[in-house]
């Protein structure tokens, strides 16, 4: 027995750092407590209001502040700046549990953590971190990430928003599309080209406060799902910002965006997992209670096979997500795994929510049960932060390198 323990310990220290794959089998105690805390919060404070938030398109301001107080809005941020100082595995766990309660709240949390705070933490100066991160840790203020444009989503390198220098200011002109949190944000990271001739190497990242002269918002999109979070265009017309508001070196915008999205994918994968898990629980609960042909429908193989398929899809995607998070935490390359996680989890979410409606039958189609909301919420996970098609390209790109094709 002792020899086995020694061997296992040796194996786990083989993976450098304090992270090991044994954590995929059982989470460390702190992470278990964290997961339980977030689950309790989601069960008590988010699930009961999720349907209303969705129906009335209401931004969950109070809940975001409560999550901020818990440290969930700035999980990776060091404590000195007001964050929780935790790792990405912890973030994935929190994201899944929050999204299981309310997917809209989940996306607000994800965008603030991964897409807004993430790049500033990685590429910002100390001064920028104080100014642009510290006030955004409590949930009182949230940020957004403005990369996509009406003319380009997947084709991020073709940015047509322009920033040119005028004296000691940048002047930004252009339109950004599909920006999550836009109507509720107090700052945005805007990607604009400072040199069109350099194509994607000419794109730079800028920090823009909101509201700001020259920045206006388009109408709130009327979406299929995640309706409690706002999505709109951001229009920049001679929007002037100080030179010091550039994030990272000039021309590094595309790199910043791509690296940011790599991490963001783990958060969205976790959001998709939450939606998928909620769907499975909804279906399993119904299968237990609904009787037909003289017994609960959970006794029928047709239903059992669906539940089993749902569980396998979720667990595989979850392990992929945890692995991507663990690799990132160990400062190892994680691009491929993050793309795999997002692809698997988003397809699991659409599959599970689809099957959950099937299990619920007619009840799955009406708003009395949450299955229809999960179905609508799940759909976007295959689209934003890199469509499933883009994920496949990213994965293939890595494979081509690995297999030297």
């Amino acid at each position, binding site marked *: 027995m002792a020899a086995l323990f020694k061997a296992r310990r040796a194996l786990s220290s083989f993976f450098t750092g304090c992270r090991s794959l044994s954590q995929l089998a059982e989470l460390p105690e702190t992470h278990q*407590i964290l997961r339980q805390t977030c689950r309790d919060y989601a069960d008590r404070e988010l699930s009961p209001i999720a349907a209303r938030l969705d129906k009335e398109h209401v931004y969950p301001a109070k809940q975001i502040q409560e999550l901020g107080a*818990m440290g969930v809005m700035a999980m990776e941020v060091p404590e000195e700046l007001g964050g929780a100082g935790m790792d990405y595995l912890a973030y994935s766990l929190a994201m899944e549990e929050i999204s299981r309660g309310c997917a809209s709240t989940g996306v607000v949390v994800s965008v603030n953590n991964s897409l807004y705070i993430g790049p500033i933490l990685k590429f910002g100066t100390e001064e920028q971190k104080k100014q642009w991160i510290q006030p955004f840790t409590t949930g009182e203020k949230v940020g957004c990430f403005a990369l996509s444009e009406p003319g380009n989503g997947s084709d991020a390198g073709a940015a047509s928003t322009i920033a040119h220098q005028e004296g000691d200011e940048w002047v930004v002109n252009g339109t950004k599309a599909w920006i999550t949190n836009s109507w509720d944000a107090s700052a945005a990271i805007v990607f604009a080209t400072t040199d069109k001739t350099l194509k994607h190497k000419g794109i730079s990242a800028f920090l823009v406060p909101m509201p700001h002269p020259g920045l206006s918002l388009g109408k709130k999109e009327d979406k299929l799902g995640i309706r409690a979070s706002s999505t709109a265009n951001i229009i920049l017309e001679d929007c002037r910002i100080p030179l010091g508001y550039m994030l990272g070196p000039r021309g590094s915008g595309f790199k910043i965006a791509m690296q940011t999205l790599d991490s963001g994918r783990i958060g969205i994968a976790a959001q998709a997992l939450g939606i998928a898990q909620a769907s499975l629980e909804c279906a399993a609960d119904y299968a237990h209670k609904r009787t037909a042909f003289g017994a609960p429908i959970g006794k029928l193989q047709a239903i059992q096979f669906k539940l089993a398929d749902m569980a396998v899809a979720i667990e595989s995607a979850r392990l992929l997500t945890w692995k991507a998070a663990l690799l990132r935490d160990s400062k190892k390359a994680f691009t491929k795994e993050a793309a795999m996680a997002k692809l698997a989890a988003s397809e699991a979410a659409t599959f599970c929510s689809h099957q959950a409606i099937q299990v619920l039958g007619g009840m799955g189609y009406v708003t009395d049960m949450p299955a229809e909301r999960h179905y609508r919420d799940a759909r976007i996970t295959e689209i934003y932060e890199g469509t499933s098609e883009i994920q496949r390209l990213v994965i293939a790109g890595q494979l081509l390198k690995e297999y030297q094709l």
Partner: protein
Amino acid sequence: MSGRVLVGVKRVIDYAVKIRVKPDNTGVVTDGVKHSMNPFCEIAVEEAVKLKEKKLIKEVVAVSCGPQQSQETIRTALAMGADRGIHVDVSGKDYENLGPLQVSKILAALAKQEDAQLILLGKQAIDDDCNQTGQMTAALLDWPQGTFASEVSLEGDKINLVREIDGGLEHIKINTPAVITADLRLNTPRYATLPNIMKAKKKKIATVKPADLGVDVTSRLEVLKVEEPPQRQAGMKVETVEDLVVKLKEAGRV
């Protein structure tokens, strides 16, 4: 005054779980069932942490009696803001038979050992609903008790307490050291913040055995049988008050 508060936290089956009786009727199914901190204990921890934040007391020590898993419950208390924990290791048959009298003896012994100024407990546990531990602990220590507390305020070396009683609310003033048991409306327990969950990992949990405290945990009670409550019968409707009286008399209720 040491400024130290002992808070008792009990690991119980989670309130949301559907309880099932074991087929042999010796108890309820606990294997693989979700457990968490007794809700009234959560309220007690919250009150203790609040007192510490107001700087009215100096240290919060979370105590739990039970098997290894009770440490998780202590860890949750630490994440809520308790400073350190004491795990009184009781397992197996001793744990199955552990009841308020033995726990009170343990708490009384710990209170003396830790020089506690205050013991905060939940009013009762949601598994056995005994509502005895606080009262017994106070009696063993010969300390005043403020049970079913819905409001607590410290005033010098005295405590002002509002108690929820059948007739309404009772206001009392008791000396310290004292035992207080928390009722539902005392406060709303906080969600542990993530930084505190991380910090909790570094806080110490000491393990002791009841024998180390000079306590004999042998139970004087023997559980004969545990069974489901009778299935609820359908009611019936009657047309008039006279019919109602007749039916009640028939059923032997009047």
